[in-house]
Structure formats: C-alpha cells, structure tokens
C-alpha cells in the first residue's frame, strides 16, 4: 500500500526495502486506480529507481516518486497539456524543474491530467476525460492541476508538481484535501512549462504535508538564467519549518468572504483563524477594495496572453495535422479540430481583447487594474505578516455541474486570481470539511516571504488534525 506516504515515510521504506520496490508499489497502485489521474506513466521510472539503489544517483529526493503535470516538459516522455493538439508530442528537453528533480534523485513516475492547457477549474476540459475526486467520485478534483492533486490524495504519488496561473494548484489542493503552494512569481523557473498565461503562472508543489512542500521547493526553487523572469533570491524553505506563530499578524480580507461563499467553508476557515489566535497569533480585518475587479482583469490578461502563446500550435512542426489546400487552411483546420471548446473560447476572447480598437478598452485597462490589485497587497502587507481566506468559495462541485455555464466556473476563481495578478506567494492547506468534502485554508504572504508562509502553514498542521483526514474507501 502506498496511501498517504510523506517523503520521510518513503525514505524509510526505501531503506527497509529498495527504491525499486517503492516505485513498483506506486505503479501497482496506479495500475488499479479508477480516478484517471495520470495521462501517461514513465517507462523509465523503475530504471531511475534502480539507479538510486545502485548508488548512481543521490540527493535529497533520492528514490522519491513524483507525478508531474502534463504541461511541464519531460524529455522523452509525452507532454500534451491534455490536448489533442499535442498528441504524440515528446519534448526533446527537460524543463528546469525536471532537471533539478532528476539531479535530486527524484523518480518521475508519470504525467498527470489537467484542464486542457490549464484552462479550467475542474479538469473536465481534458481531452482524456475528467479525473475523479478521490473523496467523491461524482465530483471534480478541481483544476487545472486536478490530476496532480488527485494522485497525491489517492496515494498514487507522495508528491507532485502542478502549475498555478489563477489558482490551478490551490484549487485542486483544496478540493482534494492536500497541500499546494503557488510560489512568488519568479521564484521557480518556468523554463519548460508550456505557457498558458506567462505573466501570471508559476510551477508549484503539491503534497500531503507542509514539510514535503518545503523539501520540493528547496529542490526546484531558485534562479535559472533561461527564464528572464526568474529572480536570484535564495529562500531556505526547510529552515522555515518551525512550529511558532506567536506574534504573527494575520489580516483577514473582508472581500474574500463575499456573497456565494459556502457556509461550511466559511465556518471551517474562521475556525482555523480562531485556532491561530489560540496559538498566539492575532488577526484583524483588512479591506482590499480592488478585489472586485480582479477576476475580470485576470481573465482578460490570461486570455490575451493565451491567444498569443497558443499560436504556435499550427500542425507544422509537431502534433496532428489536418488537410488543407494551402498552409493557412491546414493550420486553421488543425486548430479548429484539435483545440477543445474552452481553449477556442479563450483564444477568441483573448484575440479580441488585444485587437486594435479594443486593446485600450480591455487589455490595457486590465493591466491598470492589475496595478491596483498589487497596491491592495502592498498596503495589506505593510500591516500584516500573512493574509487568510478560503482558497475556494465552495467545496468540490459535481462533474458536469458547471460545464454548460463557463462563467459560473470562472467565478469560482474569485479568491485565487488576485495573488497571480500581484505575484505574491500563497499556500492552501486542509482546514476541515463542508458536507464531508475537504476545505482549503489559503494563506497569502508577501513577495519572496515563503518562509513566513511555510512557518504559518506548518504550525497549523502541527496543532490540528485536519491534515490527517483521508478520503474514504469509495466504491
């Protein structure tokens, strides 16, 4: 059984048995799985584990299996963004984070399911079909990194990587009851991450506990010259694993508890905040007045960037190719036949928002709002160490529930997108349940203050039992 092992559990098992056996047992669990969390399994996983056993590879994650979201390039291993348009595409290079993980001895076990090109909150837009939420197979795992969260929650990998453009790590972490971190923009190299909205997104780890998040961050974080937005700032995440929040000043933004927040969720989050007070922290309400514009600005910017980022998928160099009497017809048909509906919708909207005559009204206006949202955070962090809010306004919804109404799905991102606009780090940790489904507490920190974030989340985990909740054996 591989259920809910932390990195240190895995390491113990490796000592007791072997890295090969540990990886084999995960592969066996995956084999029997019914949640559709993986898009492909690495042929090389067992060999990589054997190398660890032979002592050819060492490092802080030696022999630890890790699942990778399908939009992070892995050399020799299909990387499709859960899209038909990348069917058969095998990257000839490793993303920066994959190089780091391999050097640290981690075993890439497979690629995980996601919303097509990371566009969604439910993993329903994947060309491989939805991933099931391990807590309730009728519900979505969240998205877009749904596969990465679900496989950790289901014990099919101890740790995973996702990417977070507007909540895509935190949302599924909350829905699946695991921990997920979105680092400060620039803290982790994006080299090799297939862009959806490049000014917003970061690769982030998902795990069963805060300790593992810190361990993965210490491997993947840090400067990379190949990503011009990468920032040279050393953060020691594991040194921040300290159970102490005495004197911590918590801001609670009113705007994140607005209309439409599920009562069970709201209660779980307030219980958590009160717990912090018990542990020696203080809290106060704070106003972040521009939050109400954040969602519109976020979608405008994300779709605009996406419309350009996804232009390269034209059937010329890789992926499937449709017929056509000339190149332009071939490219249009390839795109029409292989991009899913949601991706096409966002490309169209983004193209519109960037068009001459409309750019001022939409894209440039959204950039102005982005500045205002950033200022909200600057003001808040002048007075508080961290901010706390529900990660998602509601627990995991039913599969199919929001498919026909994309706008209602966009609205569920209301509490996660402002941090991407501002570039600040944030973490979602389990903090209880609503109707038997996990609820995520979102802790938000200042730029490059991952240390405070980790310390706060770690203290919460050490002083509560929420992290010990497990999905039941679902038939």
């Amino acid at each position: 059984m591989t259920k809910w092992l932390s990195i240190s559990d895995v390491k113990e098992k490796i000592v007791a048995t072997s890295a090969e056996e540990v990886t084999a047992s995960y592969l066996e669990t995956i084999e029997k799985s019914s949640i559709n969390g993986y898009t492909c399994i690495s042929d090389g996983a067992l060999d990589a584990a054997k190398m660890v056993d032979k002592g050819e590879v060492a490092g802080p994650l030696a022999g630890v299996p890790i699942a990778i979201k399908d939009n992070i390039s892995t050399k020799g291993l299909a990387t499709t963004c859960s899209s038909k348009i990348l069917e058969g595409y095998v990257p000839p290079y490793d993303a920066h984070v994959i190089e780091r993980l391999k050097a640290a001895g981690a075993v890439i076990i497979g690629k995980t399911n996601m919303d097509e090109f990371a566009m969604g909150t439910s993993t329903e837009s994947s060309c491989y079909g939805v991933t099931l939420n391990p807590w309730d197979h009728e519900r979505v795992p969240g998205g877009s990194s749904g596969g990465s969260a679900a496989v950790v929650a289901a014990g099919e990998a101890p740790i995973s990587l996702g990417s977070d453009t507007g909540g895509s790590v935190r949302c599924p972490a909350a829905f699946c009851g695991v921990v997920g971190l979105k680092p400060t923009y620039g803290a982790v190299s994006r080299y090799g991450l297939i862009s959806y909205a490049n000014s917003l997104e970061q690769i982030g780890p998902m795990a069963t506990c805060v300790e593992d998040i810190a361990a993965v961050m210490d491997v993947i974080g840090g400067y990379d010259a190949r990503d011009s937005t990468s920032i040279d700032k050393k953060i020691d995440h594991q040194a921040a694993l300290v159970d102490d929040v005495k004197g911590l000043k918590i801001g609670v933004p009113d705007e994140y508890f607005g209309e439409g927040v599920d009562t069970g969720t709201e209660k779980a989050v307030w219980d958590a905040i009160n717990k912090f007070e018990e542990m020696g922290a203080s809290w106060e309400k704070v106003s972040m007045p521009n939050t109400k514009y954040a969602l519109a600005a976020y979608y405008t910017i994300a779709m605009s960037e996406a419309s350009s980022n996804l232009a390269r998928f034209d059937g010329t160099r890789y992926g499937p190719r449709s017929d056509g009497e000339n190149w332009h017809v071939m490219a249009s048909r390839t795109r029409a036949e292989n991009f899913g509906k949601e991706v096409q919708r966002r490309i169209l909207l983004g193209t519109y928002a960037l068009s001459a005559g409309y750019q001022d009204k939409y894209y440039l206006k959204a950039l102005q709002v982005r500045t205002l949202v950033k200022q909200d955070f600057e003001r808040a962090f002048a007075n508080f160490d961290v901010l706390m809010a529900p990660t998602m306004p509601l627990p995991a919804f039913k599969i199919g529930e929001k498919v026909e109404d994309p706008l209602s799905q966009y609205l569920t991102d209301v509490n996660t997108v402002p941090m991407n606009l501002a570039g600040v780090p944030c973490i979602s940790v389990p903090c209880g349940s609503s109707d038997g489904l996990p609820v995520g507490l979102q802790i938000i920190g200042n730029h490059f203050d991952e240390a405070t974030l980790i310390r706060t989340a770690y203290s919460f985990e050490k002083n509560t039992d929420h992290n010990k909740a497990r999905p039941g054996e679902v038939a």
Partner: protein
Amino acid sequence: MVYENPDGVMVGLEVHVQLNNLNTKMFCGCSTQYHDAEPNTHVCPVCMGLPGALPVINKSAVESAIKIGMALNCEVVEQTQFHRKNYYYPDLPKGFQTTQYDFPIVGNGKVVIEGEDGEHVVRITRAHMEEDPGKLIHMGSIEKSKGTLIDYNRSGMALIEIVSEPDMRSPKEARRYLDKLRNILDYLNVFNGDLEGSMRVDANVSVMGGQRAEVKNISSHKGAERAILYEIMRQKNLLRRGGEVVLETRHFDEARGVTISMRTKEGEHDYRYFPEPDLVPMRVSDWAPAIREELPELPDAKRARLISEYDITEMHAKALTSDIRVADFYEVVAAAIDPRVAGTWVADVLKGELNYRDLSVDSFTTDDIIEIINLVVEDKVTEQSAVDVIRTILDNGGTPMEVVTDKGLLKVKGDVVTEAVSETIAENEAAVQDYLGGAEKSLNFLVGQVMKKTKGRADARQARELLVAALKS
C-alpha cells in the same frame, strides 16, 4: 544647383541587417554560423518555438544595436522593451515575432549621403531589434509552388531594422544611402555583409499624385536601384493613363526586374502588438557612455582625417574610405612611402584592378604594393610595368620581383636607349626625312621602333626626348 525632383519621387527604406557576426542568436545560444550547414541543424527548443521554451536577450546584440544607433546619430532609449507581433506564417515557429514596437532601441538619427545635388541628409526614423524568421524554400515559383520546405537555421537570428524617412528622391540616392549604410556597418564590424541575406531591403516608393507602394524582397543594392526605378516608371505610367496608385505591398522579382502586387494594404493587418511577458525590460541607458567610447572612427571622420593627415585629394580619400579594409590597407602603405603617391596607387590603380576582378583588398598584401611602388619611385620599372605586375599577381600570383624577373620588366639603362635611338635613326631614313620635313606623326613611328628594340622596357617619354634631341643635332 538644386535638384528639382520633377516627379515628386519619395523613397523611404526599411533595411534589415542580420547581426551575423555575433556568436549566438537573438534569444538563444544557437550558433549564427549556419550559412553552409544542413537545414535545421542550428536549432534548439527556443528558436524552434517548442512548447515551454523561453527567450533570453543576447546582450551583445543589444550592444550592437546601440552601436549602430550611435553611428547613425540616433538617440538611445532608456531601457529595452520587446513586443510580440502576432501573425501566422509557417516560417514563424511561435506564431508571433519578438520585436520592438513603441520603444525602439534607438531613433531620431540621420545619415549624410552624396545626393543628386551635393550633400543630402536622410533622416533615420528608428532602428529596432527583432528576430529573423526561418526560411521557406518553395519548390517552384512563389506563385505556383508544389510544396514548401522550411529551414529554421535562420530562425531567431538577431536583426536590426533601420527605418528611414522618405527622404530619397531617386533610385540613385537610394543606392547611395544603402552603400553608405553598408559602409558604416562594415566600420562597426557588426555584421558580415558578404553573407547571403545579411542586408534585406523593403522600399516605400511614391510619386506625386499617388499613394505609396511597399516593395519587398530586395536583396541587393543594385536590386534596390532597379526595383525603385521600375516602381517609379510603373507609377508614373499608371497616373499618366489616368489610373490610380493604391496603397499596396509588391514583391520584387529580381530575375525579371519587375514588381508584382502581393496584397492591397486596405485591410491592414492587425498584429495585436503587446509587451512580451517573458522578457523583462533591460536598462541600457547606463551602457551608452562605454559603448560610445568604443565606437570606431566612422567613414566621414576617417575621410576628413586622411585628407588632413596625408594631404591626399578628396576624391582619393572618398575612394579609400568607402571600404574600411581599403582605408586600413592604405594607412599601412602610407606609413611606408610618400602618402600622396600611395594614395594614387591604392585608390586609383589597385582599387580599380580589384573592382574589375570583383576582388576585395584582402587579395593583395601591403608589402607587395609597397615593393611595387618603390620600384617605380626608384625608377627601376615603368609605371606601365608596375600596373602589369599588379595585374599579374592578382591573376596568377607570385611576388613582385618574380613577376618583374619573369617578364624582364626591369627598366633598361639610358645608354641602351641611346643606342636604340641611333640605330633607329640609321635604319629608318625615310621616316627621319618625313619628320624633318614637318610630319610630326613620323616621330610616333620612330618612338615605336625604339620601344620595339628595347622590348618595351624603355620609358616612352625618355625615348621621345632622346629622339628629338638626336634629330635636332
């Protein structure tokens, strides 16, 4: 004299200069030396636009761009800003070109050319950095091609696009502008202009009473002159027949020497420019002083200095500085011998012989020319023989002395000529009588006879003088 420009010709040029002297491409580490390589061998995830790859600015390319801007008397922007120009084309692997938009690296400059009526200023609007797309190879002509192959070796090469105001008034001025530009770029050593596609030109051409046409695909200076000439004639003829010159893009067919309409500009492309999120602005204003410090002497300054330092003519100075390699060559020669004599030999003789053979000055050594000029100065060979030596070396190789010896070009001594003169007078009585009788032409015949006897090694002038003196006595 003022040039009237009777047809109201206005020509503005957009010149794409490929910075092929850099070690690497604009945004990745791929080598720029792909010109003789197999297709698609100088590529990486970045310049192939593979999913997930990210660009990194090549600092040397930015420095070259600033250098070029300074040489064109431009102002330098505070910090770099790149934009995406979005359009679909198979040679564009990302579906957008990374270029500059509202903050070009340099702008507001000028270049002085030799215009129709003396010195003429061509204003430089801007010069910006961008990446080269890949290269399409059509199987057959562009209009009815059966298929197209793509070579991405060129993809991602650093380009500087230099945009002028429509200040040129004739094809000749456009040609002169391009020559001047090439000249300046050579001085800066930012590119190798001899490589294919290193300088590509789009010309905006209009005549009075019509709109402008943009002529694309011009790959040589001569081609630019021809394309513009054709375009002016086409537009004038159209207007004369009562037609209308519309705003459009035309393609220059170099083989046929004509321009062909590609598309009308009415539905002008919307490129949806927006700032490239993957490239953060780079502050460059602080670099400017150091770059200015390192700026080499430019053609105009060098020309003025050669005139004042070596006392050579304006014409020679112009000829010498029109190619930096010739100017450098000249200065080495001028250090060894009389600079004015060196000016004549390098600017007139050697450069003429090189141009005739389409050779660069690298095909000759300074040592050889110094040796040859010294032979003339020391009166060992005639000027005509010296030219012969230069030609022979260019055509067949060898050292000056080898050629002189092989061809027996050493000038014969005066007494040999005197002897030949006496013999000629003795052997050609009729011609002597004719000359003495007033037939001046006969003297030429007699000089020819002397030259024949000395196998051309006599100095013709000296032979003539000796003949006249001998006949008078």
